[in-house]
C-alpha cells in the first residue's frame, strides 16, 4: 500500500474484488499513485496484472470497489498495436486527435522524423515500438498505462526503448503505471515497485 505524501493523488485504487465467473482474480487492492510518479506492478503471468490495468484504464467496470483515474490516459501495449492501414503520422493524429505539428514534433523526439508517410509494416519492430511510444505521448496524457511494453523485444532493443521511455516520462512529468513480470524493467524506469501475488491476488510493496 502506498503511503506516498507526494502532492495530489493522480490515481486512487480501492478494489474489493474482481471475479471472472466463479474465479476470484483480484482480492482487496489499495493503491494511490501520486501525480508525476512511476509505479510498477510486478508478478507472474496470469496473476491479474493486466486485469488490474484494464480496470485502471476504464476498460473494465465490472468489479467491486472504486477507482479514480485522470481523464486523459494513454496506453502502451505489449505489441505496438498500430493501425496497419494508416501512415505513421495518421496513427498519431487520427487515433489520439492530436494536431499534425505536435505529432511531427513527437516523432522527431523518438527519432522517427523521416518516417511520417511510412506504413507500420514498412518500419522495423524497434521503430514500431518508438511510434507506439510517440502515440502515447502525443496526446499529452495525465496517466500512462503500460502493459508489458518491453516483453517482445530482445535485450539490446529493450534497453534502448526503456531508456527512451524513461526520458519521455521524466520530460513530460506524466504519472505512469507499468505492469511487468520483470523486476529489471521496473528498475530501469526508476519505478516504485509493488508485487501482485496470491489467489485472489493482493498487492504488497516490493523491494526496489
Amino acid at each position, binding site marked *: 500500500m502506498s503511503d506516498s505524501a507526494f502532492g495530489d493523488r493522480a490515481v486512487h485504487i480501492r478494489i474489493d474484488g474482481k471475479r471472472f465467473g466463479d474465479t476470484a482474480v483480484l482480492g482487496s487492492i489499495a493503491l494511490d499513485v501520486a501525480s508525476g510518479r512511476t509505479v510498477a506492478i510486478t508478478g507472474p503471468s496470469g496473476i491479474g496484472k493486466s486485469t488490474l490495468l484494464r480496470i485502471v484504464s476504464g*476498460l473494465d467496470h465490472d468489479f467491486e470497489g472504486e477507482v479514480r483515474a485522470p481523464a486523459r490516459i494513454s*496506453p502502451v501495449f505489449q505489441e505496438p*498495436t498500430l493501425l496497419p*492501414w*494508416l501512415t505513421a503520422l495518421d496513427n498519431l493524429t*487520427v*487515433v*489520439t486527435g492530436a494536431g499534425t505539428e505536435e505529432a511531427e514534433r513527437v516523432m522527431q523526439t523518438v527519432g522517427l522524423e523521416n518516417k511520417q508517410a511510412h506504413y507500420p*509494416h*514498412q518500419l522495423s519492430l524497434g521503430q514500431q515500438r518508438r511510434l507506439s511510444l510517440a502515440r502515447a505521448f502525443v496526446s499529452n496524457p495525465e496517466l500512462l498505462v503500460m502493459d508489458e511494453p518491453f516483453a517482445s523485444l530482445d535485450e539490446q532493443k529493450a534497453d534502448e526503448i526503456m531508456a527512451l521511455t524513461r526520458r519521455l516520462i521524466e520530460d513530460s512529468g506524466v504519472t505512469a503505471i507499468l505492469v511487468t513480470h520483470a523486476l529489471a524493467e521496473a528498475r530501469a524506469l526508476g519505478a516504485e515497485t509493488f508485487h501482485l501475488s496470491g489467489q485472489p491476488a493482493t498487492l504488497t510493496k516490493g523491494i526496489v
Partner: protein
Amino acid sequence: MSVSATDRLRRSSLYFVSLLGLIATWQIAATVAGDPALLPAPLPVLTAMGGELIRGELLHHVGITLMRVLAAFVLAMSIGITVGVLMGRDRTVDGLLDPVLIVLLNLPALVVIVLAYLWIGLTEAAAIAAVTINKVPLVTVMLREGARALDPQFDALASIYRMSRWKRLRHILLPQLAPYIAAAARSGIALIWKIVLVVELLGRSNGVGFKIHLYFQLFDVKMVLVYAISFVLVMLCVEAFVMRPVETAANRWRSA
C-alpha cells in the same frame, strides 16, 4: 518494367488466350454440330446481338436486369454486413439468430422466389425481396467470421482514446472488415444476377430473364445466347471497372 507490371501483362495475356480458346471451342462445336438452330456459331450470334442493340431492345432489358441486381446487391450487403457484425460481436444475438441463419442458408432459392410472389404478389418489390433474402445469409456468415476476427486491442485503443463512433467505424472497424466485405461482394454479385434471372423468368415481363424465357419457348437458341452473353459481358465490366478498382484502392496500404 517492374516485376508487378510484367506480371500484370502476363496475366492479361493469359486472360485473352483463355477467352479466345473459349470462342474457338464454340466455333468448332458449332461446325461439328452443323445445326444453327441447335448451336449457332459465334458470328451469327454477334450479328444478332448488334441487331438487338440497334433496335434498343438489348439495352432496355439488360438495363432493367442490372438495376434489379444493383438494388438487391445494395440491400443484401447492407443487411448482411449489419447482422453479421452484430452476430460476430454479441453472443446473445448470435445464439438467437444462428438457427434462423441455418434455415435460410438451406432454403432453396426457388422456394423463396415462389413464396415471395405468392405472398407479396407479382411485383418489383417481391422480385427484389426474393433476391435479397437469398443473398443475405451468405453475406451474414462471411461478415460474422470477419467480426469474430476483429482485434480486441484496437477496441481497447479506441475506448481509451475515446474515439468517436464515426472514427471507430471508418478507421478501426471497416478496414479490418474490408477483406470480408470484398469477398462477400464478389461472390454476392455473381450469385445475385443468376437469381435475378430466375426471378424475372418466373414473374416479370421485362429483363434478361424474361427474354431468355421467351426465346426458350420459341426454341430460339441464338437469341437465348444473345441475351445470356450480353449480360455476362456486362457483369465482367462491373467486375473489371467497379469491383476491382474499389478493392485495389482499399488495399493500397498493403503494397505501399
